[in-house]
Protein backbone atom coordinates (compact mmCIF):
# COMPACT_ATOMS: atom_id res chain seq x y z
CA UNK A 1 0.00 0.00 0.00
CA UNK A 2 1.63 3.21 -1.14
CA UNK A 3 1.25 5.61 1.72
CA UNK A 4 0.91 8.77 -0.36
CA UNK A 5 -1.42 7.13 -2.87
CA UNK A 6 -3.81 5.51 -0.44
CA UNK A 7 -4.84 8.76 1.24
CA UNK A 8 -8.44 9.86 1.12
CA UNK A 9 -9.68 11.97 -1.75
CA UNK A 10 -11.18 15.18 -0.47
CA UNK A 11 -14.69 16.04 -1.49
CA UNK A 12 -15.32 18.70 -4.17
CA UNK A 13 -16.72 21.11 -1.58
CA UNK A 14 -13.25 21.38 -0.15
CA UNK A 15 -11.70 22.81 -3.31
CA UNK A 16 -9.21 25.61 -2.80
CA UNK A 17 -10.73 29.06 -2.25
CA UNK A 18 -10.24 31.54 -5.09
CA UNK A 19 -11.27 34.68 -3.29
CA UNK A 20 -10.73 36.01 0.20
CA UNK A 21 -13.23 38.26 1.91
CA UNK A 22 -16.82 37.22 2.31
CA UNK A 23 -17.05 33.49 2.78
CA UNK A 24 -13.32 33.16 3.12
CA UNK A 25 -13.52 32.09 6.71
CA UNK A 26 -15.96 29.33 5.83
CA UNK A 27 -13.70 28.13 3.07
CA UNK A 28 -10.74 28.18 5.42
CA UNK A 29 -12.76 26.21 7.93
CA UNK A 30 -13.52 23.69 5.21
CA UNK A 31 -9.89 23.43 4.28
CA UNK A 32 -9.08 22.80 7.94
CA UNK A 33 -11.79 20.17 7.99
CA UNK A 34 -10.05 18.50 5.04
CA UNK A 35 -6.88 18.16 7.09
CA UNK A 36 -8.91 16.82 10.00
CA UNK A 37 -10.46 14.31 7.66
CA UNK A 38 -7.01 13.10 6.66
CA UNK A 39 -5.77 12.65 10.22
CA UNK A 40 -9.09 11.05 11.20
CA UNK A 41 -8.60 8.70 8.29
CA UNK A 42 -5.41 7.31 9.78
CA UNK A 43 -6.97 7.03 13.24
CA UNK A 44 -9.79 4.98 11.73
CA UNK A 45 -7.61 3.06 9.28
CA UNK A 46 -4.66 1.83 11.32
CA UNK A 47 -6.30 -0.05 14.25
CA UNK A 48 -8.46 -2.39 12.12
CA UNK A 49 -5.62 -2.85 9.64
CA UNK A 50 -3.11 -3.74 12.37
CA UNK A 51 -5.62 -5.99 14.15
CA UNK A 52 -6.60 -7.89 11.03
CA UNK A 53 -3.01 -8.01 9.81
CA UNK A 54 -1.70 -9.39 13.08
CA UNK A 55 -4.50 -11.75 13.99
CA UNK A 56 -5.86 -12.80 10.62
CA UNK A 57 -3.41 -12.27 7.75
CA UNK A 58 -0.12 -13.12 9.50
CA UNK A 59 -1.44 -16.35 11.10
CA UNK A 60 -2.50 -17.61 7.69
CA UNK A 61 0.80 -16.58 6.08
CA UNK A 62 2.58 -18.27 8.97
CA UNK A 63 0.56 -21.41 8.41
CA UNK A 64 1.37 -21.32 4.71
CA UNK A 65 5.08 -21.02 5.53
CA UNK A 66 4.83 -23.78 8.12
CA UNK A 67 3.26 -26.15 5.63
CA UNK A 68 6.57 -26.12 3.74
CA UNK A 69 8.52 -27.30 6.75
CA UNK A 70 9.69 -30.82 6.10
CA UNK A 71 10.07 -32.30 9.60
CA UNK A 72 8.55 -32.02 13.03
CA UNK A 73 11.74 -31.99 15.10
CA UNK A 74 12.82 -29.09 17.29
CA UNK A 75 11.15 -25.80 18.08
CA UNK A 76 8.59 -24.29 15.76
CA UNK A 77 10.80 -22.31 13.41
CA UNK A 78 14.21 -23.73 14.19
CA UNK A 79 16.23 -25.69 11.64
CA UNK A 80 14.22 -24.15 8.85
CA UNK A 81 14.44 -26.38 5.81
CA UNK A 82 11.76 -25.58 3.28
CA UNK A 83 10.46 -28.51 1.32
CA UNK A 84 7.39 -30.01 -0.24
CA UNK A 85 7.44 -33.14 1.93
CA UNK A 86 4.13 -32.42 3.64
CA UNK A 87 2.30 -31.80 0.39
CA UNK A 88 3.89 -34.94 -1.04
CA UNK A 89 2.57 -36.87 1.95
CA UNK A 90 -0.90 -35.43 1.41
CA UNK A 91 -0.86 -36.15 -2.32
CA UNK A 92 0.31 -39.71 -1.80
CA UNK A 93 -2.14 -40.50 0.99
CA UNK A 94 -5.31 -41.50 -0.74
CA UNK A 95 -7.39 -41.42 2.43
CA UNK A 96 -6.95 -37.62 2.79
CA UNK A 97 -8.30 -37.02 -0.70
CA UNK A 98 -11.09 -39.48 -0.12
CA UNK A 99 -12.01 -37.67 3.08
CA UNK A 100 -11.97 -34.30 1.30
CA UNK A 101 -14.20 -35.82 -1.36
CA UNK A 102 -16.51 -37.37 1.23
CA UNK A 103 -16.68 -34.10 3.17
CA UNK A 104 -17.52 -32.14 0.01
CA UNK A 105 -20.17 -34.70 -0.91
CA UNK A 106 -21.65 -34.53 2.60
CA UNK A 107 -21.64 -30.73 2.42
CA UNK A 108 -23.41 -30.97 -0.95
CA UNK A 109 -26.14 -33.27 0.41
CA UNK A 110 -26.52 -31.13 3.52
CA UNK A 111 -26.75 -27.80 1.71
CA UNK A 112 -29.11 -29.08 -1.02
CA UNK A 113 -31.37 -30.66 1.63
CA UNK A 114 -31.33 -27.57 3.82
CA UNK A 115 -32.22 -25.36 0.83
CA UNK A 116 -34.98 -27.67 -0.43
CA UNK A 117 -36.48 -28.07 3.05
CA UNK A 118 -36.36 -24.37 3.86
CA UNK A 119 -37.76 -23.12 0.51
CA UNK A 120 -41.39 -23.88 1.44
CA UNK A 121 -40.77 -22.27 4.83
CA UNK A 122 -39.62 -19.06 3.18
CA UNK A 123 -42.47 -19.29 0.67
CA UNK A 124 -44.97 -19.54 3.49
CA UNK A 125 -43.36 -16.63 5.35
CA UNK A 126 -43.16 -14.44 2.26
CA UNK A 127 -46.65 -14.98 0.84
CA UNK A 128 -48.98 -16.41 3.47
CA UNK A 129 -47.88 -15.29 6.93
CA UNK A 130 -50.04 -12.14 6.90
CA UNK A 131 -50.11 -10.04 10.04
CA UNK A 132 -48.16 -12.61 12.02
CA UNK A 133 -45.12 -12.50 9.71
CA UNK A 134 -42.84 -11.12 12.43
CA UNK A 135 -43.83 -13.74 15.00
CA UNK A 136 -43.54 -16.60 12.51
CA UNK A 137 -40.09 -15.44 11.49
CA UNK A 138 -38.87 -15.20 15.08
CA UNK A 139 -40.37 -18.61 15.75
CA UNK A 140 -38.16 -19.96 12.98
CA UNK A 141 -35.07 -18.17 14.22
CA UNK A 142 -35.18 -19.05 17.92
CA UNK A 143 -33.63 -22.51 17.37
CA UNK A 144 -30.86 -20.88 15.38
CA UNK A 145 -30.09 -18.51 18.25
CA UNK A 146 -29.82 -21.30 20.80
CA UNK A 147 -26.43 -22.82 21.47
CA UNK A 148 -25.09 -24.80 18.53
CA UNK A 149 -23.20 -27.24 20.72
CA UNK A 150 -26.32 -27.92 22.77
CA UNK A 151 -28.57 -28.50 19.80
CA UNK A 152 -26.07 -31.02 18.47
CA UNK A 153 -25.86 -32.60 21.91
CA UNK A 154 -29.63 -32.81 22.10
CA UNK A 155 -29.52 -35.07 19.06
CA UNK A 156 -27.03 -37.25 20.89
CA UNK A 157 -29.43 -37.49 23.84
CA UNK A 158 -32.28 -38.37 21.50
CA UNK A 159 -30.47 -40.95 19.39
CA UNK A 160 -28.16 -42.57 21.96
CA UNK A 161 -28.53 -46.23 22.93
CA UNK A 162 -30.29 -45.29 26.19
CA UNK A 163 -31.70 -42.16 24.61
CA UNK A 164 -35.20 -40.87 24.01
CA UNK A 165 -35.96 -42.65 20.76
CA UNK A 166 -34.58 -46.06 21.74
CA UNK A 167 -36.22 -46.14 25.15
CA UNK A 168 -39.46 -44.98 23.58
CA UNK A 169 -39.40 -47.79 21.02
CA UNK A 170 -38.49 -50.37 23.67
CA UNK A 171 -41.23 -49.13 26.01
CA UNK A 172 -43.83 -49.69 23.32
CA UNK A 173 -42.34 -53.06 22.51
CA UNK A 174 -41.45 -52.17 18.93
CA UNK A 175 -37.84 -53.28 19.44
CA UNK A 176 -36.13 -55.43 22.05
CA UNK A 177 -32.54 -54.22 21.84
CA UNK A 178 -31.58 -50.54 21.43
CA UNK A 179 -30.77 -49.58 17.86
CA UNK A 180 -27.08 -48.67 17.74
CA UNK A 181 -27.17 -47.63 14.09
CA UNK A 182 -28.84 -44.34 15.03
CA UNK A 183 -25.76 -42.62 16.39
CA UNK A 184 -22.06 -42.35 15.53
CA UNK A 185 -22.11 -42.52 11.77
CA UNK A 186 -22.13 -40.32 8.73
CA UNK A 187 -25.93 -40.22 8.38
CA UNK A 188 -26.30 -38.83 11.89
CA UNK A 189 -23.81 -36.06 11.05
CA UNK A 190 -25.77 -35.25 7.89
CA UNK A 191 -29.13 -35.26 9.69
CA UNK A 192 -27.83 -33.09 12.52
CA UNK A 193 -26.24 -30.55 10.21
CA UNK A 194 -29.34 -30.28 8.02
CA UNK A 195 -31.28 -29.63 11.20
CA UNK A 196 -28.79 -26.97 12.30
CA UNK A 197 -28.80 -25.12 8.96
CA UNK A 198 -32.51 -25.03 8.02
CA UNK A 199 -33.34 -21.68 9.71
CA UNK A 200 -30.15 -20.15 8.31
CA UNK A 201 -30.88 -21.27 4.75
CA UNK A 202 -34.40 -19.87 4.92
CA UNK A 203 -33.22 -16.28 5.36
CA UNK A 204 -31.65 -15.44 1.96
CA UNK A 205 -34.48 -17.28 0.18
CA UNK A 206 -37.04 -15.27 2.14
CA UNK A 207 -35.23 -12.04 1.25
CA UNK A 208 -35.29 -12.94 -2.45
CA UNK A 209 -39.00 -13.89 -2.37
CA UNK A 210 -39.93 -10.67 -0.59
CA UNK A 211 -38.33 -8.61 -3.38
CA UNK A 212 -40.62 -10.01 -6.08
CA UNK A 213 -43.08 -7.37 -7.30
CA UNK A 214 -46.69 -8.32 -6.72
CA UNK A 215 -47.69 -6.70 -10.04
CA UNK A 216 -45.84 -9.47 -11.87
CA UNK A 217 -48.28 -12.03 -10.48
CA UNK A 218 -51.26 -9.84 -11.40
CA UNK A 219 -49.94 -9.45 -14.92
CA UNK A 220 -49.37 -13.19 -15.22
CA UNK A 221 -52.84 -13.94 -13.86
CA UNK A 222 -54.40 -11.43 -16.28
CA UNK A 223 -52.66 -13.20 -19.12
CA UNK A 224 -54.11 -16.49 -17.94
CA UNK A 225 -51.17 -18.13 -16.14
CA UNK A 226 -52.21 -20.77 -13.67
CA UNK A 227 -50.69 -20.71 -10.15
CA UNK A 228 -48.26 -23.49 -11.02
CA UNK A 229 -47.15 -21.66 -14.17
CA UNK A 230 -46.76 -18.48 -12.15
CA UNK A 231 -44.52 -20.31 -9.73
CA UNK A 232 -42.38 -21.89 -12.43
CA UNK A 233 -42.09 -18.78 -14.59
CA UNK A 234 -41.96 -15.98 -12.01
CA UNK A 235 -41.41 -17.04 -8.41
CA UNK A 236 -38.77 -19.69 -8.89
CA UNK A 237 -36.51 -17.84 -11.37
CA UNK A 238 -36.66 -14.62 -9.37
CA UNK A 239 -35.86 -16.40 -6.12
CA UNK A 240 -32.83 -18.20 -7.55
CA UNK A 241 -30.25 -15.64 -6.31
CA UNK A 242 -31.51 -16.28 -2.79
CA UNK A 243 -31.43 -20.04 -3.36
CA UNK A 244 -27.81 -19.92 -4.55
CA UNK A 245 -26.85 -17.63 -1.67
CA UNK A 246 -28.43 -20.03 0.82
CA UNK A 247 -26.66 -22.95 -0.82
CA UNK A 248 -23.21 -21.39 -0.53
CA UNK A 249 -23.86 -19.97 2.95
CA UNK A 250 -24.44 -23.53 4.12
CA UNK A 251 -21.97 -25.34 1.86
CA UNK A 252 -18.87 -23.28 2.67
CA UNK A 253 -18.88 -23.59 6.47
CA UNK A 254 -20.04 -27.22 6.28
CA UNK A 255 -16.97 -28.36 4.33
CA UNK A 256 -14.77 -27.15 7.19
CA UNK A 257 -17.02 -28.59 9.88
CA UNK A 258 -15.36 -30.63 12.62
CA UNK A 259 -17.44 -30.13 15.77
CA UNK A 260 -20.59 -32.01 14.77
CA UNK A 261 -18.66 -35.12 13.62
CA UNK A 262 -16.79 -35.00 16.93
CA UNK A 263 -20.06 -35.14 18.86
CA UNK A 264 -22.32 -37.43 16.87
CA UNK A 265 -20.08 -38.85 14.13
CA UNK A 266 -17.98 -41.37 16.03
CA UNK A 267 -15.05 -42.90 14.17
CA UNK A 268 -17.14 -43.52 11.04
CA UNK A 269 -18.46 -40.00 10.69
CA UNK A 270 -15.15 -38.13 10.54
CA UNK A 271 -14.83 -35.21 8.16
CA UNK A 272 -11.80 -33.48 6.65
CA UNK A 273 -11.77 -30.86 9.42
CA UNK A 274 -11.28 -33.62 11.97
CA UNK A 275 -7.92 -34.73 10.56
CA UNK A 276 -6.69 -31.12 10.72
CA UNK A 277 -7.84 -30.91 14.33
CA UNK A 278 -6.17 -34.25 15.07
CA UNK A 279 -2.82 -33.21 13.64
CA UNK A 280 -2.84 -30.06 15.78
CA UNK A 281 -3.90 -31.80 18.98
CA UNK A 282 -3.48 -35.54 19.54
CA UNK A 283 -1.16 -36.44 16.66
CA UNK A 284 0.94 -33.26 17.03
CA UNK A 285 2.16 -33.07 13.45
CA UNK A 286 1.71 -29.37 12.82
CA UNK A 287 3.48 -29.13 9.44
CA UNK A 288 1.25 -31.81 7.95
CA UNK A 289 -1.78 -30.23 9.62
CA UNK A 290 -0.78 -26.90 8.07
CA UNK A 291 -0.51 -28.43 4.60
CA UNK A 292 -3.95 -30.02 5.01
CA UNK A 293 -5.32 -26.65 6.21
CA UNK A 294 -3.88 -24.84 3.20
CA UNK A 295 -5.59 -27.33 0.89
CA UNK A 296 -8.87 -26.78 2.77
CA UNK A 297 -8.42 -23.02 2.51
CA UNK A 298 -7.63 -23.26 -1.21
CA UNK A 299 -10.70 -25.41 -1.85
CA UNK A 300 -12.89 -22.95 0.07
CA UNK A 301 -11.50 -19.95 -1.81
CA UNK A 302 -12.18 -21.60 -5.16
CA UNK A 303 -15.75 -22.25 -4.03
CA UNK A 304 -16.16 -18.63 -2.97
CA UNK A 305 -14.85 -17.44 -6.34
CA UNK A 306 -17.38 -19.67 -8.09
CA UNK A 307 -20.09 -18.38 -5.76
CA UNK A 308 -19.29 -14.74 -6.50
CA UNK A 309 -19.48 -15.53 -10.22
CA UNK A 310 -22.96 -16.98 -9.82
CA UNK A 311 -24.39 -14.51 -7.33
CA UNK A 312 -24.07 -10.78 -7.66
CA UNK A 313 -23.47 -9.41 -4.18
CA UNK A 314 -25.47 -6.29 -5.01
CA UNK A 315 -28.56 -8.46 -5.57
CA UNK A 316 -28.36 -9.64 -1.99
CA UNK A 317 -27.81 -6.25 -0.41
CA UNK A 318 -30.82 -4.57 -2.04
Amino acid at each position, binding site marked *: *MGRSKSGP*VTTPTQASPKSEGFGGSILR*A*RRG*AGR*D*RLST*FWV*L*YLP*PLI*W*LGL*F*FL*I*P*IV*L*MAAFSFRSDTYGA*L*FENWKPGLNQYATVVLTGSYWRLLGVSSFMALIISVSAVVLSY*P*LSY*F*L*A*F*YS*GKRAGIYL*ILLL*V*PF*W*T*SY*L*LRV*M*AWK*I*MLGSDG*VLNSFLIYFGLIKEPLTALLYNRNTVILTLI*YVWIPFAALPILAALQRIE*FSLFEAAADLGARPFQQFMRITLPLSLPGVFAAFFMVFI*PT*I*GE*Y*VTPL*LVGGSNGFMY*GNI*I*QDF*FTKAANWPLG*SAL*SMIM*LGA*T*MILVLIATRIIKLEDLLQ
Partner: protein
Amino acid sequence: MNNRRAPISLSLYYFGLIAFLYLPIVVLFLFSINSNTTLSFPLKGFTLGWYQKLLQADAVLRAARNSLVVASGSSFAATILGTMVSILMMRYQFKSKNLLLALAALPLIVPYVVLGVALLLLFSVLHVDRSLLTVGIAHTVVALPYTLLIIASRLAGFDSSVEEAAMDLGADYPTTLRRIVLPLILPAMVSAWLTAFTVSFDEFALALFLAGTQPTFPVYLFSQLRFANRLPIMIALAVLLMMGTLTLVFIAERYRQREV
Protein backbone atom coordinates in the same frame (compact mmCIF):
# COMPACT_ATOMS: atom_id res chain seq x y z
CA MET B 1 -50.04 -10.48 -1.34
CA ASN B 2 -48.94 -11.50 2.11
CA ASN B 3 -52.38 -12.24 3.53
CA ARG B 4 -53.91 -14.85 1.28
CA ARG B 5 -55.06 -18.00 2.98
CA ALA B 6 -52.28 -20.53 2.96
CA PRO B 7 -52.94 -23.91 1.37
CA ILE B 8 -53.43 -26.32 4.24
CA SER B 9 -50.45 -28.43 3.18
CA LEU B 10 -48.12 -25.44 3.32
CA SER B 11 -49.28 -24.44 6.81
CA LEU B 12 -48.90 -28.02 7.96
CA TYR B 13 -45.43 -28.12 6.50
CA TYR B 14 -44.42 -24.89 8.24
CA PHE B 15 -45.70 -25.93 11.66
CA GLY B 16 -44.42 -29.50 11.26
CA LEU B 17 -40.91 -28.30 10.51
CA ILE B 18 -41.07 -25.78 13.34
CA ALA B 19 -42.01 -28.63 15.68
CA PHE B 20 -39.04 -30.62 14.37
CA LEU B 21 -36.74 -27.64 14.97
CA TYR B 22 -37.96 -27.24 18.56
CA LEU B 23 -37.80 -30.95 19.40
CA PRO B 24 -34.15 -30.95 20.59
CA ILE B 25 -34.74 -27.80 22.62
CA VAL B 26 -37.71 -29.39 24.37
CA VAL B 27 -35.60 -32.48 25.00
CA LEU B 28 -32.89 -30.36 26.63
CA PHE B 29 -35.44 -28.64 28.83
CA LEU B 30 -36.97 -31.97 29.90
CA PHE B 31 -33.50 -33.30 30.62
CA SER B 32 -32.82 -30.44 33.02
CA ILE B 33 -35.91 -31.16 35.14
CA ASN B 34 -35.74 -34.95 34.92
CA SER B 35 -34.59 -36.78 38.06
CA ASN B 36 -32.65 -39.48 36.17
CA THR B 37 -29.25 -38.88 34.54
CA THR B 38 -30.40 -40.43 31.27
CA LEU B 39 -33.42 -39.20 29.43
CA SER B 40 -35.12 -42.54 28.98
CA PHE B 41 -38.78 -43.08 28.36
CA PRO B 42 -40.88 -43.21 30.53
CA LEU B 43 -39.64 -40.23 32.55
CA LYS B 44 -38.92 -41.13 36.19
CA GLY B 45 -39.77 -37.95 37.97
CA PHE B 46 -39.65 -34.19 38.12
CA THR B 47 -36.91 -32.34 39.97
CA LEU B 48 -35.39 -28.91 40.24
CA GLY B 49 -32.39 -30.49 41.97
CA TRP B 50 -30.05 -29.94 39.02
CA TYR B 51 -30.67 -26.23 39.18
CA GLN B 52 -29.99 -26.36 42.91
CA LYS B 53 -26.75 -28.32 42.47
CA LEU B 54 -25.68 -25.76 39.92
CA LEU B 55 -25.14 -23.24 42.70
CA GLN B 56 -22.39 -25.43 44.18
CA ALA B 57 -20.80 -26.41 40.88
CA ASP B 58 -17.85 -24.02 40.97
CA ALA B 59 -16.11 -25.20 37.80
CA VAL B 60 -19.27 -24.87 35.74
CA LEU B 61 -19.93 -21.38 37.00
CA ARG B 62 -16.31 -20.39 36.45
CA ALA B 63 -16.54 -21.56 32.84
CA ALA B 64 -19.74 -19.55 32.38
CA ARG B 65 -18.03 -16.51 33.89
CA ASN B 66 -15.09 -17.02 31.49
CA SER B 67 -17.50 -17.01 28.57
CA LEU B 68 -19.10 -13.81 29.84
CA VAL B 69 -15.69 -12.12 30.08
CA VAL B 70 -14.61 -13.24 26.61
CA ALA B 71 -17.93 -12.33 25.02
CA SER B 72 -18.08 -8.86 26.61
CA GLY B 73 -14.50 -8.02 25.71
CA SER B 74 -14.45 -9.37 22.17
CA SER B 75 -17.84 -7.89 21.27
CA PHE B 76 -16.70 -4.50 22.54
CA ALA B 77 -13.51 -4.64 20.44
CA ALA B 78 -15.38 -5.97 17.38
CA THR B 79 -17.91 -3.14 17.63
CA ILE B 80 -15.21 -0.44 17.83
CA LEU B 81 -13.26 -1.93 14.93
CA GLY B 82 -16.45 -2.50 12.95
CA THR B 83 -17.43 1.14 13.44
CA MET B 84 -14.04 2.29 12.22
CA VAL B 85 -14.16 0.16 9.08
CA SER B 86 -17.80 1.13 8.43
CA ILE B 87 -17.01 4.87 8.52
CA LEU B 88 -14.06 4.30 6.18
CA MET B 89 -16.25 2.30 3.79
CA MET B 90 -19.18 4.69 3.69
CA ARG B 91 -17.50 8.10 4.06
CA TYR B 92 -14.05 7.84 2.45
CA GLN B 93 -12.63 7.03 -0.96
CA PHE B 94 -9.17 5.48 -0.95
CA LYS B 95 -7.17 3.06 -2.99
CA SER B 96 -6.90 0.17 -0.56
CA LYS B 97 -10.63 0.34 0.22
CA ASN B 98 -11.52 -2.96 -1.43
CA LEU B 99 -8.51 -4.60 0.15
CA LEU B 100 -9.55 -3.52 3.64
CA LEU B 101 -13.14 -4.62 3.01
CA ALA B 102 -11.95 -8.02 1.78
CA LEU B 103 -9.67 -8.40 4.81
CA ALA B 104 -12.51 -7.53 7.20
CA ALA B 105 -15.08 -9.78 5.48
CA LEU B 106 -12.85 -12.81 4.77
CA PRO B 107 -13.08 -14.27 8.30
CA LEU B 108 -16.67 -15.08 7.36
CA ILE B 109 -15.56 -17.65 4.80
CA VAL B 110 -12.31 -19.03 6.22
CA PRO B 111 -13.21 -22.34 7.90
CA TYR B 112 -13.04 -21.99 11.69
CA VAL B 113 -10.79 -25.03 11.99
CA VAL B 114 -8.26 -23.34 9.68
CA LEU B 115 -8.39 -19.99 11.47
CA GLY B 116 -8.20 -21.77 14.82
CA VAL B 117 -5.02 -23.70 14.03
CA ALA B 118 -3.45 -20.66 12.28
CA LEU B 119 -3.95 -18.57 15.44
CA LEU B 120 -2.67 -21.44 17.55
CA LEU B 121 0.47 -21.39 15.41
CA LEU B 122 0.83 -17.60 15.78
CA PHE B 123 0.51 -17.66 19.56
CA SER B 124 2.97 -20.56 19.81
CA VAL B 125 5.53 -18.70 17.69
CA LEU B 126 5.06 -15.55 19.79
CA HIS B 127 5.23 -17.62 23.01
CA VAL B 128 1.88 -16.24 24.13
CA ASP B 129 0.17 -18.60 26.57
CA ARG B 130 -3.31 -19.61 25.57
CA SER B 131 -5.88 -17.88 27.73
CA LEU B 132 -9.18 -16.06 27.63
CA LEU B 133 -7.32 -13.27 25.85
CA THR B 134 -6.36 -15.49 22.91
CA VAL B 135 -9.94 -16.75 22.61
CA GLY B 136 -11.20 -13.17 22.75
CA ILE B 137 -8.82 -12.11 19.98
CA ALA B 138 -10.09 -14.90 17.72
CA HIS B 139 -13.72 -14.00 18.47
CA THR B 140 -13.06 -10.36 17.65
CA VAL B 141 -11.78 -11.40 14.21
CA VAL B 142 -14.80 -13.57 13.40
CA ALA B 143 -17.35 -11.09 14.82
CA LEU B 144 -15.97 -8.17 12.82
CA PRO B 145 -17.82 -9.01 9.55
CA TYR B 146 -21.14 -9.01 11.43
CA THR B 147 -20.57 -5.70 13.22
CA LEU B 148 -19.29 -4.17 9.98
CA LEU B 149 -22.40 -5.23 8.08
CA ILE B 150 -24.83 -3.95 10.73
CA ILE B 151 -23.13 -0.58 11.27
CA ALA B 152 -22.35 0.05 7.59
CA SER B 153 -25.98 -0.50 6.58
CA ARG B 154 -27.04 2.04 9.20
CA LEU B 155 -24.47 4.53 7.87
CA ALA B 156 -25.75 3.96 4.34
CA GLY B 157 -29.25 4.70 5.62
CA PHE B 158 -28.74 8.37 6.36
CA ASP B 159 -27.59 11.22 4.18
CA SER B 160 -24.08 12.56 4.65
CA SER B 161 -25.46 16.08 4.15
CA VAL B 162 -26.01 16.25 7.93
CA GLU B 163 -22.28 15.91 8.39
CA GLU B 164 -21.56 18.47 5.67
CA ALA B 165 -23.90 20.89 7.42
CA ALA B 166 -22.01 20.44 10.68
CA MET B 167 -18.70 21.04 8.96
CA ASP B 168 -20.03 24.08 7.11
CA LEU B 169 -20.88 25.50 10.51
CA GLY B 170 -17.25 25.13 11.53
CA ALA B 171 -17.07 21.75 13.24
CA ASP B 172 -13.90 19.82 12.48
CA TYR B 173 -14.24 16.23 11.29
CA PRO B 174 -13.52 14.48 14.62
CA THR B 175 -16.14 16.69 16.30
CA THR B 176 -18.60 15.92 13.51
CA LEU B 177 -18.04 12.21 14.01
CA ARG B 178 -18.44 12.47 17.76
CA ARG B 179 -21.41 14.82 17.88
CA ILE B 180 -23.32 13.91 14.70
CA VAL B 181 -22.35 10.51 13.33
CA LEU B 182 -21.87 8.49 16.52
CA PRO B 183 -25.26 9.44 18.04
CA LEU B 184 -26.92 8.50 14.75
CA ILE B 185 -25.28 5.09 14.50
CA LEU B 186 -25.43 4.30 18.23
CA PRO B 187 -28.48 2.01 17.90
CA ALA B 188 -26.68 0.03 15.19
CA MET B 189 -23.60 -0.15 17.40
CA VAL B 190 -25.67 -1.55 20.27
CA SER B 191 -27.24 -4.08 17.92
CA ALA B 192 -23.80 -4.98 16.53
CA TRP B 193 -22.42 -5.39 20.04
CA LEU B 194 -25.23 -7.75 21.01
CA THR B 195 -24.78 -9.79 17.84
CA ALA B 196 -21.03 -10.06 18.43
CA PHE B 197 -21.72 -11.03 22.03
CA THR B 198 -23.98 -13.91 21.07
CA VAL B 199 -21.55 -15.06 18.35
CA SER B 200 -18.72 -15.20 20.90
CA PHE B 201 -20.71 -16.67 23.75
CA ASP B 202 -21.73 -19.71 21.71
CA GLU B 203 -18.46 -20.20 19.83
CA PHE B 204 -16.73 -23.53 20.28
CA ALA B 205 -14.65 -24.46 17.21
CA LEU B 206 -12.08 -21.68 17.73
CA ALA B 207 -12.17 -21.72 21.52
CA LEU B 208 -11.28 -25.42 21.63
CA PHE B 209 -7.89 -24.64 20.05
CA LEU B 210 -7.23 -21.40 21.93
CA ALA B 211 -8.68 -21.74 25.43
CA GLY B 212 -5.77 -23.52 27.11
CA THR B 213 -6.37 -24.00 30.82
CA GLN B 214 -9.20 -21.46 31.02
CA PRO B 215 -12.17 -23.14 29.37
CA THR B 216 -15.11 -21.10 28.13
CA PHE B 217 -18.53 -22.60 28.78
CA PRO B 218 -18.83 -24.49 25.46
CA VAL B 219 -15.30 -25.89 25.88
CA TYR B 220 -16.02 -26.96 29.44
CA LEU B 221 -19.34 -28.47 28.39
CA PHE B 222 -17.51 -30.46 25.73
CA SER B 223 -14.92 -31.72 28.21
CA GLN B 224 -17.68 -32.94 30.55
CA LEU B 225 -19.66 -34.87 27.95
CA ARG B 226 -17.99 -38.13 28.95
CA PHE B 227 -19.35 -37.94 32.50
CA ALA B 228 -23.01 -38.82 32.28
CA ASN B 229 -23.79 -37.88 35.87
CA ARG B 230 -22.48 -34.32 35.36
CA LEU B 231 -24.52 -33.74 32.24
CA PRO B 232 -27.87 -32.66 33.76
CA ILE B 233 -26.17 -29.87 35.77
CA MET B 234 -24.47 -28.61 32.62
CA ILE B 235 -27.73 -28.66 30.74
CA ALA B 236 -29.54 -26.87 33.55
CA LEU B 237 -27.04 -24.05 33.27
CA ALA B 238 -27.26 -24.22 29.49
CA VAL B 239 -31.03 -23.78 29.66
CA LEU B 240 -30.54 -20.69 31.82
CA LEU B 241 -27.86 -19.34 29.48
CA MET B 242 -30.08 -20.07 26.47
CA MET B 243 -32.79 -17.93 28.03
CA GLY B 244 -30.22 -15.21 28.64
CA THR B 245 -29.03 -15.32 25.03
CA LEU B 246 -32.58 -15.27 23.73
CA THR B 247 -33.35 -12.21 25.84
CA LEU B 248 -30.31 -10.47 24.36
CA VAL B 249 -31.32 -11.44 20.83
CA PHE B 250 -34.84 -10.12 21.33
CA ILE B 251 -33.49 -6.85 22.69
CA ALA B 252 -31.15 -6.59 19.69
CA GLU B 253 -33.99 -7.27 17.25
CA ARG B 254 -36.31 -4.74 18.89
CA TYR B 255 -33.55 -2.18 18.87
CA ARG B 256 -32.94 -2.69 15.18
CA GLN B 257 -36.60 -2.76 14.22
CA ARG B 258 -37.26 0.49 16.02
CA GLU B 259 -34.56 2.03 13.85
CA VAL B 260 -35.86 0.78 10.51
